[in-house]
């Protein structure tokens, strides 16, 4: 199995931003330009996550998404502020291949997962889980780690699978933006607990971090954000390193 290497863009339209431990935001560049750059670098997918619209109850910024989609001939996942089947349908029509849902499903209406999976196919429905560690377990958060939900991560992961989600995007509130490695225990636990693909995010600070999480947790994919933004490491560079370490990745 080839582990997917995914470029994750945390977006405050029209910019890609870098959240610092889910708090401050730093502007990195124009979203559509960075998406194209990472596509050319060999990303297996691009994930576009609007990290502000949900929190501020804003609408989805469709024109930015369409502009970004137009540059890509690889799968494009879109998340942030999705609240209805109409939102999802519209996103597919402007070029998204997958939608990434968190807040609305976990806080208000988990049933949207079942409905969306039935209409659009489960492979197109990704559930984003933001996990924060509390003692021996993890709890689901929303809106970039700002809001507690009271739901256990393990239980929620199993529930979204049974409701028809086709994939989980697993983030760690504790590790995100710090570039100091993944929450390996969390990643391993969730990958082993569900039969659907799990893409892990939050923590890639070096090539070794990426290798470590793949070897330890065997995720279907690794989503990388800020590590890519400073041109120190390219996606092709990551793939080459992984290949040299006997980890299968696409060309």
């Amino acid at each position, binding site marked *: 199995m080839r582990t997917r290497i995914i470029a994750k863009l945390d977006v405050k339209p029209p910019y890609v931003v870098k959240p610092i431990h889910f708090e401050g935001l730093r502007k990195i560049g124009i979203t559509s330009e960075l998406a194209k750059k990472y596509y050319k670098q060999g990303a297996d997918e691009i994930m576009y996550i609007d990290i502000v619209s949900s929190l501020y109850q804003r609408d989805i910024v469709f024109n930015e998404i369409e502009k970004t989609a137009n540059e890509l001939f690889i799968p494009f996942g879109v998340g942030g502020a999705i609240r209805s089947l109409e939102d999802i349908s519209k996103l597919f029509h402007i070029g998204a291949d997958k939608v990434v849902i968190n807040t609305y499903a976990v806080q208000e209406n988990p049933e949207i997962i079942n409905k969306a999976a039935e209409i659009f196919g489960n*492979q197109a429905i990704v559930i984003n889980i933001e996990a924060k560690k509390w003692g021996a377990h993890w709890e689901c958060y929303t809106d970039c780690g700002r809001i507690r939900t009271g739901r256990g991560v393990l239980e929620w992961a199993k529930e979204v699978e049974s409701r028809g989600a086709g994939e989980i995007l697993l983030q760690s509130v504790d590790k995100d933006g710090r570039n100091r490695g993944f929450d390996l225990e969390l990643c391993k636990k969730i990958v082993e607990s569900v039969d659907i693909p799990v893409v892990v995010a939050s923590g890639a600070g070096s090539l070794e971090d990426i290798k470590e999480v793949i070897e330890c947790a065997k995720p279907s994919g690794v989503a990388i954000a800020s590590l890519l933004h400073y041109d120190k490491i390219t996606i092709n560079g990551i793939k080459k390193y992984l290949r040299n370490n006997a980890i299968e990745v696409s060309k």
Partner: protein
Amino acid sequence: MSNVIGIVNYGIAGNIHSIKKAIEAADGITIVINEVSQFSDVDKIVLPGVGSFKDAMQELENDGFLEALKNTTKPILGICLGMQILSTLGFEYGKTKGLNFIEAEVRPILVDAKVPHVGFNTIELINSNEVLKDLENEEFYFMHSYEVVNYTNISSLTEYSGHKFVSSIQKNNVYGVQFHPEKSRDAGIKLFSNFINLQGEG
């Protein structure tokens, strides 16, 4: 000339946007087919598909596209679910009859690995065709939970975690690919280019 490609637009799930873009990148001219009469304006047909087998067949019927598709002699390329519904029967959300171009059934992927099968993977040519020309060593993007079970019209197989499944089929003017050429970088654009250059009827 034979490079006007009609993309069948049906249902609320469709992602025809990326397919249109990829065909245009391969120098094809596209027409989005929204009504039956448009089938006569095109040389070839692309049948996309997002959603479930059952919904897709229902939508094709509601839009009045079923007969037009069944009766055409123009080259057809089914993509992902669009390939699956070329089969006789589907078993997603109950049992549903397909377009029956190809004697096949569509069943859940049975494999000891994560499903859906998602990501780039290679194809092993079994009985190549013009659409797959020069693409043997390329990788294509897959994103599916069901597979076409067929023994007679296999063009290529793909292995996922020790399990081989049908990744493309062909019978007469009908072609199907389980993967998404529109999401497969240059290799996918090359596949569309092969389809555009097919010497078909129509």
